[in-house]
């Protein structure tokens, strides 16, 4: 589904990603871990098409299309969903209005009829249960005055509404208390199917107790320096990142 080959990217001339290779197939969950500043969030942003990141080398294909060639909105319409690390607030625009605009523009791109108000609302009701989100919250301005937990739940709710084929969760667990973490993970797990894939970017091993990955990759200094299964994450929790750094630094010398 997603194939990343030798991806290099930089911000304002500073290289951040230095040759990422990653294959993600339908039905899989990949976790990307790594110390602060290793390039985790950059990778997520590059895949979603954020402007300030410049791809200097490499290619990314998504469902056999050149992903890097598409505008951010077209990537979204093709089925790439990014759950933001810091969801953005938009004053005056209700979540409902925002989502309806989004859902219908995505449907239009996919050649589907727009949803009328009734159908849209019933779809919303159904998906709301998934992340235990309150309807009152959705009639308020998008993310404005939401608590950290509510913002993250709203991200997963939007994911449920847009039905993406590739979901990238960028530190969705950061700042969540244990109850909110359970709700969010539960939502993500229920949305999992054989036809979609998930990339979980996280800083805390704890998340992987709730969303169990098929593969774990360690990103360090702009490269994936180690890949493995859930056991790798456990090992990281125990030993920290230093041994990985040492190994990686040795290899580059």
């Amino acid at each position, binding site marked *: 589904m997603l194939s990343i080959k030798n991806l290099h990217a930089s911000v304002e001339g500073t290289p951040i990603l230095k040759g990422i290779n990653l294959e993600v197939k339908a039905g899989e969950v990949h976790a990307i871990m790594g110390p602060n500043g290793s390039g985790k969030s950059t990778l997520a942003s590059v895949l979603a098409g954020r402007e300030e990141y410049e791809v200097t080398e490499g290619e990314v294909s998504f469902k056999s299309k050149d992903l890097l060639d598409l505008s951010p909105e077209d990537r979204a319409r093709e089925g790439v969903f990014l759950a933001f690390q810091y969801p953005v*607030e938009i004053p005056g625009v209700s979540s409902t209005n925002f989502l309806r605009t989004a859902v219908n523009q995505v449907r239009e791109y996919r050649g589907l009829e727009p949803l009328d108000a009734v159908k849209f609302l019933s779809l919303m009701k159904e998906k709301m249960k998934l992340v235990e989100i309150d309807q009152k919250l959705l009639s308020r301005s998008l993310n404005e005055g939401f608590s950290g937990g509510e913002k993250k739940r709203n991200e997963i709710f939007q994911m449920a509404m847009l039905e993406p084929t590739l979901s990238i969760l960028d530190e969705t667990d950061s700042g969540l208390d*244990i109850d909110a973490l359970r709700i969010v993970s539960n939502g993500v797990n229920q949305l999992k199917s054989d036809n979609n894939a998930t990339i979980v970017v996280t800083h805390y091993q704890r998340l992987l107790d709730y969303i169990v990955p098929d593969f774990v990759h360690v990103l360090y200094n702009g490269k994936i320096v180690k890949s493995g299964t859930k056991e790798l994450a456990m090992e990281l929790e125990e030993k920290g990142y230093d041994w990985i750094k040492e190994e990686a630094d040795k290899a580059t010398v």
Partner: protein
Amino acid sequence: MTTITKDNITDSLLATVHPNGNSEAAQVIRENGFPTTKHEEYKFTNITKRIESKIQSFQQAKPLGLTQQDVSKAMIKDLDADVVVFNNGQFSAELSSLGEGYAVTNVTNSEAPFSIKDLYDDSYLALNKASFEKGVFIQVPKNKVLDKPVLLLNLVKANDGQLITPKLWIDCAENTEAVFIEQTVSQDEQAYLLNGSVEIKTASNSHIHYYRVQNQNNEALEVNNLLTDIHRDSTFTSFVLSLEGDMIRNNVTLNLLDSGCEGNMYGLYLLGGKTHVDNHTNVDHTKPHSESNELYKGVLADTSRGVFNGKIFVREDAQKTNAFQQNNNILLSDEATINTKPQLEIWADDVKCSHGCTTGQLDEEALFYLQARGIDKKQGKALLLYAFAGDVLEHLKIEAFKEYCIDLVQKKLGTNF
């Protein structure tokens, strides 16, 4: 810093510094003396003068002969909590009942576990650091979610000396969650100076609450410093309910040191008689993507006085900061006073900050409406005042504690006003 008269009071207080006490702190006092109203931060709160007139015995109060029964009597109803007892400001392991999975240790004056920077070089904080005798250090280890709140129970009474100096450090590791509730209970009606401080450090992704109830005798003087260093993705919430006392000064400082931090400060002060409560808050945003919320509400009757001073710093690096501050007051008498001063210092350009303050009277029309429906004036008043003040309590996490506060607030509004 403004020059401050160094007179007897400074010497008297300095004399209480512990022989092994923090020498840096003692130096701060020697240099600055204690603040008078000429000092910008103490402009409306002349606590130093009040100490001068009320305190005769400048010594640390001796521990009281307390029993488990005294402790049980001071407990909050229906609150299932671990208890850390301070006997006249000094940690008492015997009287405490501690939970599992975290460490509570005694700290003597020579060994501070850590120190959080105070931007104001507050002399009372320095005095606390230099003169406490038995402090407490609480450590919550990684991934620990405390299943019960920790009640910090301070039983106080002038005993030989009139100075009471509790000291507390809390260190919360990654992914921890905890609620601390501080309650001071006066054992008689004598005057004393309670000069406490709490320093809290959180590692990443922790969720810590610190609640405080001030409901002491009417002669009590109190200065309190709550200082916190908050790290990545962590949330810290402070709450203070001030009801009784003579003069109280609360300093709260939240240092949001990394991205993803959330700092909340809530306060409610319901004052009658001549009670004077001063809330000084500081929140310092240093890195991008942090948020702070502040809501303080007050009802002031008789000749009481409230002071609110809220500072918000947004440093140059702290883009995408959200900072909200609100202070609302109702004055019930012409002699009651409120001095409110929001202060925003913003150095970053992509931020969302707002502040608001209101001062008003009870809505007489609404009161009349209630009376016209058969509700007596006193109850009608209490109802309207609760409608104004109650929402601050909505932010409290522990149900039994929230009920306790609601009860205190309703009683106060129903009888004293």
